[in-house]
Each structure stands twice: as structure tokens, then as C-alpha cells.
């Protein structure tokens, strides 16, 4: 995962330099180019969230968490979802990757990063009110009706609300398969084989496409964005659609009444050695 944009730029600069020197790279012809891709479009969701490195603080009035002046990023699970979609495209199994976000116009920033990573185009469904998971799923369904993707890849959860719902809800209202918590994904014809990280180990399932896959952290490691790609991304299409234009029935939301900080555990004692540890455990009746 990326630590910060500055690092990415430094990295990108260096690579950009090399690219300028080698002016006529030999075209690579891979086997995959000979056959047509298995799937046409892949839709990927990118949620703008508080960066995972930020230590979140609850506002003193309990109305939410502090987001003013806080670094915002693509939800890390969504970044992995996009990386997977790009790898599928790059091995010749898909022809187009579309990134989608739902939120305020600020989310353009995350979509531009997605375009710089390698997506072809972006769609921002604009709303100032955060969308609840069911409304979010209905928004994706409306875009599916428009774009007819063969595959939708989402993060398994967003690290702000930690709900882990949208992918499953989308699959439900679409009437299509869901493969959640995925750590591996292969596509063959109109089927996908997915390895899922479940409580007892790894479960492998096969789903018919189209379908929804939600990804876990071990799926892949997302690429760094290079400076030339950031420049290129500025010219890629980013369509903004006001939520009201999609004609979606808004779901009844779960109302957030009050936020509070968690109960802190008290710092305990430091013992000198193993004898001290054993004595302390005996004292508590734990051994």
C-alpha cells in the first residue's frame, strides 16, 4: 500500500526518466493477444476514505470522526480490487476497466489515481450525502444496466464503516453470484474460479459470469503510480452523474446517533523476568 503521494512521485519520476531514454520500445506480442478476451468490461468500485495510516479521532460533539485536514485515500481493499482488474486486462482476459466512485466531487481525486493506475475511464456518481450500502448497491446496479460489465470487483469492506455489505447486496439485487473475501481469481471463458479466505481456511468456488467478486488483502500488491501515467490520466474520460439522474429508490438508512471513542485498556505492569511472569499469571488464577 502506498505511504504517500510524494513517495509515489519520486518513484514515478525515476521510471519516467528511463522511459524517455528508450524511445522506441519493441512491441511485446503475448500469446494472449491472439485470442479475444474472455470478458469485455470490468467495473471496479473506489471509495474515498480516511487514509489507513491516520489515527482516527472522534469529534468532541460525538457527531462523527475528525475528517478536516485529514489525508484521504482510496480504500486499500478497493485499490487491490483495481489492481486485480488491471492484471486480468493485462493478461488479455478483459478489454476495459472502468472505475466508479460514489460521493462528493472530491472523490475525483481517487478516480484520477485509479485512471493513473491503468483504468480506461471513470464514473463519479455525485452525492453530498454518503450513500448507505443498499443504496450504493442500487447505484452500481443502475450502472451495470448501462454498461453491461461481465465482472464487478469491489473491496471486501471499506475501512471507514467496516460494513462489508455492498458487494453481497449488489450480487443479490442483480440476481448473480458473489465470491466474497477473495485471495485468488482466475477467469476461463464465462466462468471464474475464486479462492475465498474463510474462517476455517481457504474455500474454492466456481461462479458463472457475470458476477461480483470482493477482494481480501492477500489478493495482490497494488502497483505504484508513475508520473507519466498521472499526466496521461488527466486526459482520460471522467463522467460525473448527479445521483438524482439515476432514478434510484433510496433505501431506508441506518441512522448514526452518536460516535464515541472506544474503552481504552489500562496499561498493565512490566515484570522483570519469566519468574515474575509466572507469578503474575498464578496471581490472576490463569495458570
Amino acid at each position, binding site marked *: 500500500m502506498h505511504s504517500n503521494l510524494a513517495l509515489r512521485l519520486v518513484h514515478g519520476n525515476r521510471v519516467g526518466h528511463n522511459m524517455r531514454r528508450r524511445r522506441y520500445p519493441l512491441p511485446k506480442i503475448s500469446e494472449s493477444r491472439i485470442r479475444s478476451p474472455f470478458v469485455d468490461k470490468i467495473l471496479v468500485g473506489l471509495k474515498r476514505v480516511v487514509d489507513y495510516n491516520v*489515527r*482516527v479521532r*472522534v469529534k468532541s460533539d460525538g457527531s462523527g*470522526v475528525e475528517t478536516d485536514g485529514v489525508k484521504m485515500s482510496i480504500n486499500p481493499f478497493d485499490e487491490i480490487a483495481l489492481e486485480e482488474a488491471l492484471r486480468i486486462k493485462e493478461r488479455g482476459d478483459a478489454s476495459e476497466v472502468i472505475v466508479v466512485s460514489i460521493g462528493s466531487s472530491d472523490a475525483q481525486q481517487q478516480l484520477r489515481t485509479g485512471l493513473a493506475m491503468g483504468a480506461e475511464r471513470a464514473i463519479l456518481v455525485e452525492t453530498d450525502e454518503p450513500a*448507505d*450500502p*443498499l443504496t450504493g*448497491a442500487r447505484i452500481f446496479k443502475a450502472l451495470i444496466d448501462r454498461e453491461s460489465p461481465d465482472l464487478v470487483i469491489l473491496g471486501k469492506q471499506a*475501512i*471507514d464503516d*467496516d*460494513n*462489508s*455489505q455492498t458487494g*453481497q*447486496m*449488489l450480487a*443479490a*439485487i442483480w*440476481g448473480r*453470484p458473489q465470491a*466474497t*473475501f477473495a*485471495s485468488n481469481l482466475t477467469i476461463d471463458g464465462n466462468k471464474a*474460479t475464486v479462492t475465498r479466505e*474463510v*474462517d*476455517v*481456511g*481457504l*474455500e474454492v*468456488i*466456481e*461462479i*458463472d459470469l457475470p*458476477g461480483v467478486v470482493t477482494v481480501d*488483502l*492477500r489478493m495482490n500488491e497494488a502497483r505504484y503510480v508513475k508520473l507519466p501515467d498521472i499526466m496521461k490520466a488527466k486526459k482520460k474520460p471522467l463522467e460525473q452523474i448527479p445521483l438524482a439522474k439515476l432514478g434510484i429508490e433510496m*433505501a*431506508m438508512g*441506518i*441512522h*448514526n*446517533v452518536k*460516535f*464515541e*471513542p*472506544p474503552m481504552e*485498556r489500562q*496499561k*498493565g505492569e*512490566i515484570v522483570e*523476568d*519469566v*519468574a*515474575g*511472569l509466572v507469578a*503474575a*499469571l498464578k496471581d490472576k488464577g*490463569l495458570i
Partner: protein
Amino acid sequence: MSKILIIAEHAHGVLNQSTAKCVACASEIPDAEIHVAVVADNSEAVAAAAAGLASVKSVICVDNPANENQLAAVIAPQVVALADGYSHIFGPSTTFGRDLMPRVAALLGVNQISDIMEVIGSHSFKRPVYAGNAIVTVKAPADIPVVATVRAASYRAVAAGGDAATSSASIDVECPEHTRFIELQTGKSDRPDLQTAAKVVAGGRALGSKENFELIFKLADTLGAGVGATRAAVDAGYVPNEMQVGQTGKIIAPELYFAIGISGAIQHLTGIKDAGTIVAINKDPDAPIFEVADIGVVGDLFAIVPELQAALSG
């Protein structure tokens, strides 16, 4: 009155303890009547176990060969067919429940509450957000079903001793065939299950290798404990993914937790917040794990753990 349907989690004829924890949560709702649904290929043994849980009024069985592998897409429409008349539908926030329940909620046209950690009232609950760095009190709309998952680590399983009536439901829904089970890869282990063990010994990246992780297994076996690991240790290939404890792994609440060679990243601490006693062994005195540990030992784990092992075996 609240009429609550709990979706049982089970495998190979055994009821998962997460179900008894859902019952514990549901029984905190005022004036609750609790039913358990066993959607299975052969429900008999699981239904008998569910009927024996305290506070359960009735067990409803749905038998269908298609339920053998408990696929969310297959089970969800059957749950929806049972949902009529219930004010609440609960499942555990295990990978089973987190996969299934949002699908159920969406088919019912309602939003879901994830990870209930405290009941305030019939439609009001507390749940963690931002990896547990904030707790939010939520209110569900009245007059539509409350679909929710229950954070297992926040509840103690209800005792046995119930004697619920068991009935069979025949429902007419089409089970989709677009999702097919291939296989389950699972490490066979005689150790206590990580999610329900009273004691857990966990190791981090500082163990350095798969071979060195044997230290953790040995200590666990001496204590009769389950084994956990940090994401870093899993990513480094020391142990399989099902041992991961933390925000994206398992959330656990053992009576005793040993954090060995674990620095205490916030994502890991999220998974052990509700543990009874946390013991930390780490060579870095400034490691964040010491901020939450009840007992800490600063030093080299490769010297301390074998010594502890010897002291406990003696």
C-alpha cells in the same frame, strides 16, 4: 414483542458456537422470542444442538441437498422465505454470516447492521467502525425487519439446558446453480479453535521463520491454547491465513492472550481488544503492544519463550 430469527452456522452436522453467541445477543433485546433456522442438507444433529440452547423457543429446519456447502447465494432465498413475521433476523459476523446476511438484507430491501457489540434497545445498537477506533450507536428504522450480524467476541455463548420445539418447514424457492463449491482447504489441527479458545498464543513477524514459529505451537500445546498470528506473520508464510487475528482476520476474546514478537499495530489490536488478560513479550520496550498489555516482559523472545515453556511444563 420482538420476534427474532437466528440463522444457525454449522458444518458437518456440528453447530458452530457463533450461533449460541447470537442467541446471547438476541436475548438482551427486551421481550424477545427467539427462533433458530437450520438451513442444511441434513439438519437433524444441528437442530438438536440448537434446540438445547437456553432462551431458544423454536427451531425451524429446512432440508435440501443443495445446502450441503452452505453457499450464501443458495441459502439467502430460503432465509427470505422464512423471514415473514420476524422483526429481527440475526447471523454471526463470521465469514459465513458476513457473506450471507447482506444478501438476505438486500433481497428483503433493507440495510444491514454489521457487528452488533451491544444492545441498547430493540432498534438501537452499538457497533465498531474505523477498525474499532470509534464506536457508533445506530438506530434502525422502525416497522421494517432489522437484519444484523452479531460480533461474536462481544458475547458469551448461552448455556445449554433449553428444550425448544423443532419443526420442519417446506419452502418453495428456486436455488440458483450459478455458484458451485469446488473444495475447502483447511489445516487439520487438534488444537482448540482460535475463535472459541479460552487461551490463545500468537506470534508476529519477529519469529522470523516458519521453523521458529514452532516455539509458539509448543507453548500453545503446553497451555492447551489455540494459535494465532499477525497479518505480517501470515503474509511472510509462517502460518496459514486462518490463524490471522485482527481487523481483517479474526476478532477474538480469549481469557488469556499471549502476544509474542508482536509490535501491536492498530489493525492487530482491534482483534484482541476484548481479551481478558493480554501478556506481551517483545524486545522493544516502546512497542505499542505494551500500552494495552496487562503483563509485559521486555526481552528476547527466543530466550524467554523456551524458559517460560520449561517453567510451565515443570
